[in-house]
């Protein structure tokens, strides 16, 4: 018998599922058959986009030789992308792609961080739309980098790796095609999406369970305290994942650009 005072304890524990990724439309909008409705996730996307723009705008509006405040922070970030990602992976030729990679990193990072920052508590990249669009952007970018640096020979170099007897191309060319132009963008998007979905689900389950246990009015309260401690630790872990996934998305985009810049050898 449980205490009747708390309805939560009576109903039994209901674990949150995929429905926590569904948001109702705030503004319903349909243009030429396309559903352009605005829901919470779309609003969050606008906010994150505005935030990324604002950070760069206000940091570098009146740049000083000796940076301070926001300019200092943003310069450190740009320097990190430049030294740790662009110069490390692509080299000096990659500096042209700095703006894309820096914006990509910040956008993915802030999208992910929404998952742990109250009152947002939803990771933007937990819906397929944004990871998919960003992966397609990276795909189109590395294809155009390949064409502009190698011409149409880019496709020949990619699909027909050198040093292989020609009959084997029948076997290998379909594999190269799928791995370069399909598996790359798909894994880029899915890796980010799956990490964010998993993180959001784990956090939700743990916090709902913590609330359930702490209000259970019986011996389970003890476990509730443990669950609370673990939930807080999970927030720290999700912070780490948010940064790591932004880094991985950016560095893999850089790797693909680097691969397109020069033929395989």
């Amino acid at each position, binding site marked *: 018998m449980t205490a009747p005072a708390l309805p939560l304890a009576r109903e039994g524990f209901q674990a949150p599922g995929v429905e926590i990724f569904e948001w109702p439309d705030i503004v319903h909008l349909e243009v030429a058959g396309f559903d352009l409705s605005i829901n919470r996730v779309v609003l969050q996307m606008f906010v994150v986009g505005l935030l990324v723009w604002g950070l760069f705008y206000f940091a570098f509006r009146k740049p000083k030789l000796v940076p301070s405040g926001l300019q200092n922070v943003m310069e*450190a970030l740009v320097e990190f992308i430049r*030294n*740790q*990602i662009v*110069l*490390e*992976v692509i080299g000096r030729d990659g500096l042209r792609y700095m703006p894309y990679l820096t914006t990509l990193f910040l956008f993915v990072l802030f999208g992910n961080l929404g998952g742990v920052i109250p009152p947002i508590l939803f990771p933007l990249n937990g819906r397929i739309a944004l990871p998919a669009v960003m992966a397609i952007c990276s795909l189109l970018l590395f294809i155009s980098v390949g064409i502009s640096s190698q011409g149409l020979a880019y496709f020949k170099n990619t699909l027909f*790796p050198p*040093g*292989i007897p020609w009959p*084997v191309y029948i*076997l*290998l060319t*379909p*594999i*190269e*095609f*799928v*791995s370069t132009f*399909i*598996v*790359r963008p798909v*894994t880029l998007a899915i890796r980010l999406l799956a990490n964010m979905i998993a993180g959001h689900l784990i956090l939700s389950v743990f916090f709902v369970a913590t609330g359930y246990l702490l209000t259970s009015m019986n011996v389970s309260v003890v476990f509730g305290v443990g669950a609370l401690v673990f939930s807080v630790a999970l927030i720290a872990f999700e912070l780490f994942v948010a940064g790591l996934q932004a880094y*991985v998305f950016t*560095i*893999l985009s850089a*790797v693909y650009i680097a691969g397109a810049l020069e033929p*395989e050898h």
Partner: protein
Amino acid sequence: MSDSGPPRDPPGRGGDIVWSIIGTLVAGVLAWGFIGWLLDRWLGTRFLVAAGIIVGMAGAFYLIIKRYGSG
């Protein structure tokens, strides 16, 4: 903060190769599995999907060994 020279083995590198290998394996199975599936539909057989997957895996292994094996 200024780092004196980049580390020779950056953290991204090992991961790149791992992801590239996994990507190639998946691509091999997908590409030839799909070709096998198409042939099955065309010829009305049932075994060519499986054959395609095996061929694709073999091809992917060949490609990986060729690319990363001898260094």
